[in-house]
């Protein structure tokens, strides 16, 4: 019976992955509500669980592909692989409302560029200080400091190693969690009380999950303004990371 069960899962890899990730998302939503009262976003908890499972998978198999190295969960490799990942990321561009984005105006755009540049410089500098001094690793870790999507997308484009990609995801994830948890406490310091300030926040603070969760915990009415600007963050980062920022880093280091 158990053997049959395992066989069905192993022969339907992608479907097994959908079921497994769905269960992780559900568990994360429950944990987010019950344990953190919605302060830490469910998606952030889900990604942490994913990284923990990758750690478990890596420990069991000694391989490089985390949970996907277990034959039972090989479908995770397809679901989270480059093809579907890029497909899903491109799809999110469909939700960007151009007329609304225009209202966000110049200051939102300026914040967006600063919000790409500042984390990148910090991330790349710290990577360099810790011995990741080749331009590919510096760029990937710097891009991870922008968002945890820009990091792996940039890393894949310029050929970073898996451990550097994981490091860039960890960087972006830690930043997103800091934004989620710290925003309501820092709201006064940030001047976070109007749509304009929420747009500035959305541009500079990065990831939509961090921004939407952080703003929701501060003042729910600010959420749409912040996420509107933050929605451009991953797109801009994915555009600049493997191109302009990579070339600039390479010119400076090499």
């Amino acid at each position, binding site marked *: 019976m158990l053997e049959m069960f395992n066989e069905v899962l192993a022969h339907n890899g992608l479907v097994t992955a959908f079921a497994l990730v769905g269960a992780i998302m559900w568990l994360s939503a429950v944990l987010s509500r019950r344990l953190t009262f919605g302060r830490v976003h469910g998606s952030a908890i889900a990604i942490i669980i*994913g990284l923990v499972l990758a750690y478990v998978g890596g420990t069991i198999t000694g391989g490089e592909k985390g949970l996907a190295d277990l034959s039972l969960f090989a479908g995770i490799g397809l679901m989270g692989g480059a093809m579907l990942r890029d497909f899903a990321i491109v799809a999110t561009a469909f939700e960007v409302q151009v007329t609304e984005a225009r209202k966000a105006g110049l200051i939102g755009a300026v914040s967006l560029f600063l919000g790409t540049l500042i984390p990148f410089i910090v991330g790349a500098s710290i990577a360099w200080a810790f011995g990741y001094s080749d331009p590919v690793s510096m760029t990937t870790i710097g891009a991870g400091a922008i968002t945890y999507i820009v990091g792996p997308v940039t890393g894949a484009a310029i050929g970073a190693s898996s451990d550097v990609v994981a490091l860039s995801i960890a960087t972006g994830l830690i930043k997103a969690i800091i934004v989620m948890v710290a925003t309501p406490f820092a709201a006064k310091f940030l001047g976070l009380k109007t749509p304009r300030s929420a747009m500035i926040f959305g541009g500079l603070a990065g990831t939509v999950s961090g921004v939407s969760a952080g703003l929701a915990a501060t003042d729910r009415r600010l959420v749409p303004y912040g996420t509107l600007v933050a929605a451009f963050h991953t797109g801009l980062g994915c555009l600049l990371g493997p191109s302009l920022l990579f070339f600039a880093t390479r010119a400076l280091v090499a």
Partner: protein
Amino acid sequence: MVIYGTALLAFCHLAGLLLGDLLGSVIGVKANVGGVGFAMLMLISLRIYLHKRGLLPKETEAGVGFWGAIYIPVVVAMAAQQNVLVALKGGPVALLSAIGAALLCAGAIAAISRTGRDTTALPPVHHHEFVEEEDIVFIAGVSHA
């Protein structure tokens, strides 16, 4: 038809990545340069173009919307196949980069939000809007990073 939307997305995805590969070879990088970004820009432009001509029914949008909504789960699957063991050895890099980036950005937000004239204001709190914006939080949480 739903497949029209998914096909539109696929077209943008492939064209964007092709453009990224082309740009990469033109500038002499053995990599895809900004392909995902180009694909996104292409999808935004095509959506506006098709929407203006009334060629974007709900079903077509659903063919893209599903993939946008599946984005966080895909990222979770991506996280589950990372080489975490090796990343943990570089712990302080991720921690310091994240803290440093967050602190500097917080400083920039505080500075910029205090400069210039702020003429924007929030509408008064109504119970009805409260519910609406809660939905927005939910949608944003499901479909974005």
